[in-house]
């Protein structure tokens, strides 16, 4: 059995609860009177406290206890969730996170936060209330009182409804037998006549002589759950009583010997006996037929849970994905083999396996998909904090939070998005005065949205601020040596300068974004995820940054093509259509080649030229029309082989400088095929063409 570290489970769970708490607090700021949100926050705190204490995070639970106490006043309606309270509570939430990492984390800060919390709920006065010391456990803590007697006389009668409510007197008797030899007598005088008998009620008084030198507390504990409502007397056993017990024993021979209880001795109320009956001791508790008022066969309840979720370590999912990837490759080989051998039985099996592999692949990929909302949630806090810090009121509008994306992609997106949001708030959004004079509402809007677009997910970060300042970007780019003075750039290219290393438009270095790490980190991360960045900006209206990302990094569907001796895979998501390279192509005045696609002129590139392939071209070259960013481009190939499922293998560091390929894959016959990075390929191709044309023009001149 694999052991799970409960503390680790707690950490994960705590992270979720802290997230819930934070969201609730932020919601509360919008709707301070929403009882449901207050309840949600309180419950999160409560569970954190309880579980924290449970798994030894006492610093956490002690701190939360105070936090909870303060917050309880909000729950009871004695305090309002105003800004100061939310601020203090958010600080407290951060401190809880810190304490989970390190129980000794900054106790000074902890005290200060709690004081602020108290002040917030008490309208300024600091309460001198001492923390309520919790008794960690209530059971089985023996007092230092020495055992005064070597035997006890216990007499008890359970409340009438005890049986219904799940108290089983036999278990109580068993518990006493565990303490020492017992003489148990059932006194059945109070049992009514059969016609008046309520079979579910308990009418028997038990008389027990316990021959054990235990402390009274230990016996008290036996009755812990029932002693408040029952008749119970616990007295030291006197010598005389002990003798009478022996007499009772004599009346019931074999009583003292060990053995299973006889059925009547279980003294089911339904079978009342007229006289007292001795129950032999000690009994073998497990073997004793327990009185069951309700016939409840102890059959195993169904273990499967509805809507059950399971936490699985991420590495295991990665491992699973790797195995599935290998399976996909092996399956491709099998299919190819079956085709070559033309054995119909083998082909059938191969097709079956192909079907299974494909569904396994989809399922596995599904397990890695996480709604992006998990990430967006974090940014609410970021926006809230930045808004407070900079004095810019901001409405944060997340959209498309249900959009699912590969877990690894989501994890890697966190940092770039933080940068983009910071940048937008720091530099994009104006101060309230500035907005007012520009005729805009004082509250700025920060929109974060996600949506599926084919095999990609588009994530946009947009603000309604002042927009990018083209002149300043140019000046800064020239200053940083990123472009030559006066260099011709499209506005698109100019806007993209902000993602270049060493670029920062902030003329004043703010505490928030002027920290040396800039937007180039964004670009690098997105490139690494095989994604792309677009910037759209309108002066005075705002800026929208769009990140386009593949749904998953592990497997894509590809179109396999042949160019010269090599085969390449084009991500199917980028492919729009395939056409013959024929007379429908035309050239414009500058010698550029175009494909006339139902009236649209689409430029095209020859992959043979691009990859420096020599030799004869095939007679039936094809054009694969792909979408690259916002444009369509045709790629001329020698042959289209067909669709394939492609397990992406990253290229090694030795080839990381080559942008035209996003990775490689292993084909059915075991050879390696490169995967085209359409966007980069097209821009490389255009540059080469440009260069070639310039050279030709130069020669001509």
């Amino acid at each position, binding site marked *: 059995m694999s052991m*799970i570290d*409960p503390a680790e*489970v*707690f950490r*994960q*769970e705590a992270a979720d609860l802290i997230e819930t708490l934070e969201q609730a607090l932020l919601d509360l700021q919008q709707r301070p009177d929403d009882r449901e949100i207050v309840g*949600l926050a309180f*419950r999160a705190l*409560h*569970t954190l*406290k*309880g*579980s924290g*204490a*449970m*798994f*030894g995070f006492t610093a956490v*639970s002690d701190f939360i206890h105070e936090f909870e106490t303060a917050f309880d006043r909000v729950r009871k309606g004695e305090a309002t969730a105003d800004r100061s309270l939310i601020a203090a509570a958010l600080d407290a939430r951060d401190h809880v996170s810190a304490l989970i990492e390190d129980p000794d984390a900054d106790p000074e800060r902890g005290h200060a936060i709690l004081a602020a919390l108290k002040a917030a709920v008490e309208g300024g006065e600091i309460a001198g209330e001492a923390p*309520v010391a*919790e*008794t*960690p*456990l*209530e*059971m*089985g803590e023996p007092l230092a009182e020495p055992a005064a007697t070597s035997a006890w006389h216990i007499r008890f009668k359970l409340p009438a409804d005890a*049986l*219904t*409510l*799940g*108290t*089983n007197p036999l*278990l109580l008797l*068993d*518990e006493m037998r565990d303490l020492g030899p017992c003489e148990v007598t059932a006194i059945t005088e109070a049992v009514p006549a059969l016609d008046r008998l309520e079979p*579910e009620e308990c009418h028997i008084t038990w008389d027990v002589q316990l021959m054990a030198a235990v402390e009274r507390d230990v016996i008290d504990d*036996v009755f*812990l*759950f029932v002693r*408040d*409502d029952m008749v119970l007397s616990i007295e030291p056993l006197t010598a005389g009583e002990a003798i009478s017990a022996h007499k009772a024993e004599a009346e019931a021979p074999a009583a003292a010997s060990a053995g299973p209880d006889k059925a009547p001795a279980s003294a089911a109320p339904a079978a009342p006996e007229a006289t007292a009956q001795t129950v032999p001791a000690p009994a073998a*508790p*497990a073997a004793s037929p*327990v009185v*069951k*008022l*309700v016939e*409840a*066969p*102890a*059959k*195993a*309840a*169904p*273990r499967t*849970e*509805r809507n059950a979720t399971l*936490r699985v370590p991420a590495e295991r999912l990665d491992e699973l994905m790797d195995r599935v990837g290998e399976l996909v490759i092996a399956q491709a080989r099998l299919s190819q083999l079956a085709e070559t051998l033309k054995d119909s039985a083998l082909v059938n099996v191969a097709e079956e396996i192909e079907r299974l592999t494909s569904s396994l692949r989809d399922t596995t990929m599904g397990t890695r998909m996480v709604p992006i909302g998990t990430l967006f949630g974090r940014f609410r806090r970021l926006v809230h904090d930045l808004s407070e810090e900079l004095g810019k009121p901001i409405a944060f509008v997340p959209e498309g939070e249900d959009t699912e994306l590969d877990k690894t992609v989501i994890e890697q997106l966190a940092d770039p998005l933080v940068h983009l949001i910071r940048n937008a708030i720091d530099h994009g959004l104006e101060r309230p005065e500035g907005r007012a004079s520009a005729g805009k509402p004082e509250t700025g809007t920060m929109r974060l949205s996600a949506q599926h677009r084919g095999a990609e997910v588009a994530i946009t970060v947009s603000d309604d601020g002042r927009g990018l300042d083209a002149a300043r970007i140019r000046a800064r780019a020239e200053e940083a040596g990123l472009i030559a003075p006066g260099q011709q750039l499209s506005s698109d290219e100019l806007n993209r300068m902000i993602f270049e290393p060493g670029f920062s438009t902030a003329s004043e270095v703010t505490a928030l974004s002027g920290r040396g790490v800039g937007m180039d980190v964004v670009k690098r991360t997105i490139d690494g995820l095989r994604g792309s960045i677009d910037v759209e900006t309108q002066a005075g209206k705002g800026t929208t940054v769009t990140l386009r990302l593949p749904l998953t990094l592990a497997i894509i569907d590809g179109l396999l093509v042949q160019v010269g001796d090599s085969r390449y895979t084009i991500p199917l998501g980028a492919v729009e259509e395939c056409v013959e390279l024929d007379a429908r192509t035309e050239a414009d005045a500058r010698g550029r080649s175009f494909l006339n696609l139902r009236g649209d002129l689409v430029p095209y590139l020859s992959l043979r030229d691009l990859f420096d392939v020599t030799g004869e071209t095939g007679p039936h070259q094809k054009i694969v029309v792909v979408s690259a960013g916002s444009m369509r481009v045709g790629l001329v190939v020698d042959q289209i082989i067909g669709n394939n499922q492609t397990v992406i293998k990253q290229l090694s560091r030795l080839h990381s400088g080559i942008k035209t390929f996003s990775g490689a894959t292993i084909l059915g016959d075991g050879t390696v095929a490169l995967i085209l990075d359409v966007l980069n390929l097209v821009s490389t191709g255009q540059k080469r063409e440009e260069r070639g044309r310039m050279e030709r023009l130069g020669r001509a001149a």
Partner: protein
Amino acid sequence: MSKTILVVDDSASVRQMVGMTLKQAGYSVVEASDGREALDKATSSPVDAVITDLNMPVMDGLTFIREYRATPSSNGVPIVFLTTESDAGIKAQAKEAGATGWMVKPFKTDQLLSVVRKVAGA
């Protein structure tokens, strides 16, 4: 046949810890993360004992105990509730609702087992 214990807690870590402890001690364990789910499970398939948290979303523990006790399937089934509260009020309320016993969080695994054995037997 092993006894089936229904463990009700919105905290997955508590459920896991309690569940693992009980399973290792030979019990069968059914889990529920709130009172509503617990009620569904306890009434659709009999259990031998219930361990429930009180503070839970959807349906809290007290309501669950009350509604469960209102069904015949709860007859004779011990219910132990978990509480972090040290005051007697919550205990009185829970007992009123029909709880059999309680445990104060935090507890250790041997304490858990002793309580379960106490109310449900081995």
